C-alpha cells in the first residue's frame, strides 16, 4: 500500500461505517473516482460485511427467551431497598441550611426575650407599654402588615404571660427572666423537633442514606 492509500485508508473505513463528515465525503468521492485501489478496497469491505452478516447468525432457538431469562434472573437479584430519586443538586444544602437557619432564629429570639425581660426587670422598660404599644400603628405598606401581625402576636403572648403569672413585686424580675427563658425554650424545642423531623423524613426516604453498592470492575483494561 502506498502512502497515499494509507492516508485514505481510515477515511475509507469511516465512509464505509457512515461516520465520515459530509465535507470529507465529497473529497473521498473525488478520490474514489480516480483510484482503482480504493474502489477495490471499498468493494472488499462491502463484501466482507455481507459475508459477516450472512454467515454468523445468533442461534436464537438455542437461547432462552427474554421472559424466561428474566424470571430466572429476578430470583438472583440481590435485594436493594427502594429509595427516593436523588435530590436535585440545589436542594442538597437544605439540611445544613435548615440547621443554621433554625439555630439563628432560636438564638435571636432567645437574645431578644432575655434583653426585654432584663430591661423590664431593671425597670428600664415598662412592660405594660411593651405589651401593647402598637394599636396606633398605621398600615401604609404591605410589608407593614406582616410586621404588625408579628408584633401583635408577640405582644399577645407577653400579655397572656403577664396575666397568667401573678407574683409578688419583689419576684417580678426573676419571674420575667424565667418566663422569657421558658418561651425561648419552647421556641427552641419546636424548631429543634421540626428540624429533627425533617432530617428523619429525608433519611427515611433515602436521601441521606449512604449508597453501599458492590463495586464491580468496569474500568479500562
Amino acid at each position, binding site marked *: 500500500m502506498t502512502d497515499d492509500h494509507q492516508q485514505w485508508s481510515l477515511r475509507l473505513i469511516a465512509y464505509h461505517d457512515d461516520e465520515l463528515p459530509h465535507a470529507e465525503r465529497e473529497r473521498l468521492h473525488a478520490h474514489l473516482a480516480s483510484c482503482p485501489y480504493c474502489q477495490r478496497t471499498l468493494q472488499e469491505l462491502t463484501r466482507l460485511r455481507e459475508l459477516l452478516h450472512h*454467515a454468523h447468525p445468533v442461534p436464537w432457538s438455542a437461547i432462552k427467551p427474554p421472559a424466561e431469562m428474566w424470571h430466572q434472573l429476578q430470583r438472583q437479584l440481590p435485594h*436493594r431497598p427502594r429509595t427516593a430519586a436523588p435530590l436535585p443538586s440545589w436542594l442538597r444544602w437544605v439540611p445544613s441550611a435548615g440547621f443554621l437557619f433554625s439555630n439563628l432564629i432560636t438564638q435571636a429570639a432567645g437574645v431578644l426575650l432575655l434583653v426585654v425581660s432584663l430591661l423590664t426587670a431593671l425597670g428600664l422598660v415598662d412592660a405594660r407599654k411593651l405589651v401593647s404599644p402598637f394599636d396606633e400603628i398605621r398600615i401604609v405598606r404591605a410589608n407593614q402588615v406582616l410586621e404588625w401581625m408579628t408584633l401583635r402576636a408577640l405582644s399577645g403572648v407577653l400579655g397572656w404571660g403577664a396575666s397568667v403569672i401573678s407574683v409578688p413585686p419583689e419576684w417580678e424580675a426573676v419571674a420575667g427572666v424565667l418566663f422569657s427563658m421558658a418561651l425561648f425554650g419552647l421556641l427552641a424545642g419546636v424548631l429543634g423537633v421540626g428540624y429533627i423531623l425533617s432530617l428523619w423524613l429525608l433519611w427515611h426516604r433515602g436521601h441521606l442514606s449512604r449508597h453501599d453498592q458492590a463495586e464491580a470492575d468496569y474500568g479500562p483494561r
Partner: protein
Amino acid sequence: MMARTATEAELIRRSQQGDEQAFGELVRRYYRLVVSVAYRLCNDPQLAEDIAQETFLKAWQALPRFHTQRKDKDSTSLRAWLCRIAVNTAIDEMRRQRPTVGLEEVTLPDATQATESIDQTLDAEVVRSAIARLPERSRAALILREYEGLSYQEIAEALDIPIGTVMSRLNYARKRLREELENYLKAHE
C-alpha cells in the same frame, strides 16, 4: 407488561430506586443485544446466556452509579454501558475457560435447522474461526460495529478507548479478516 410509553430515562430512574419491574423491562429491551454481543465473542450459546445473566446482575448492582445526564466524560448511553459490561464479562469468562474451550471446539448451530443450508453452515464455520482468531479487543470493536451497529462514539464508550483507537482497531480487524478470508471472498464475488 410495562406500558410502552415508559421512556428509557424513566425506567433507568426507577431501576436506580430499586424498582425490579422497571429493571425487568430494561432487561427485556436489551436482552437480545447483550446475548448477541456475548455469543459473537464466545461462540457458545449456553455461555452467552450465562454472560448475559451476569451482565444484568452487575448492571443491577451498578445502576445507582450510572449517569445519563451528566455532561462530563463519564456520561454514556445505557446501550454502550451494557455492551461495556457484557464485553468485559465475556472476556473474563473466556480467559477463565480458555484451557477448556478451544477454537476447534466452537459450537456450531444445529445443522438440522431448516433455515440453514450446508453452505451457510460452512460459511459460518469459516467466518467464526476467522473472527475468533482476532485479538479480543479488535474482535469486540468489530462485533459492536458490524453486528450491533454501535457508532464510533458508543464503541469508544463501551471499550473505554478514544475514537481514534476504535478506528484503528476496526481497520486492523477488517484488514486481518480480508486477508484470512481472501479466497473465500473471491469465491463469493
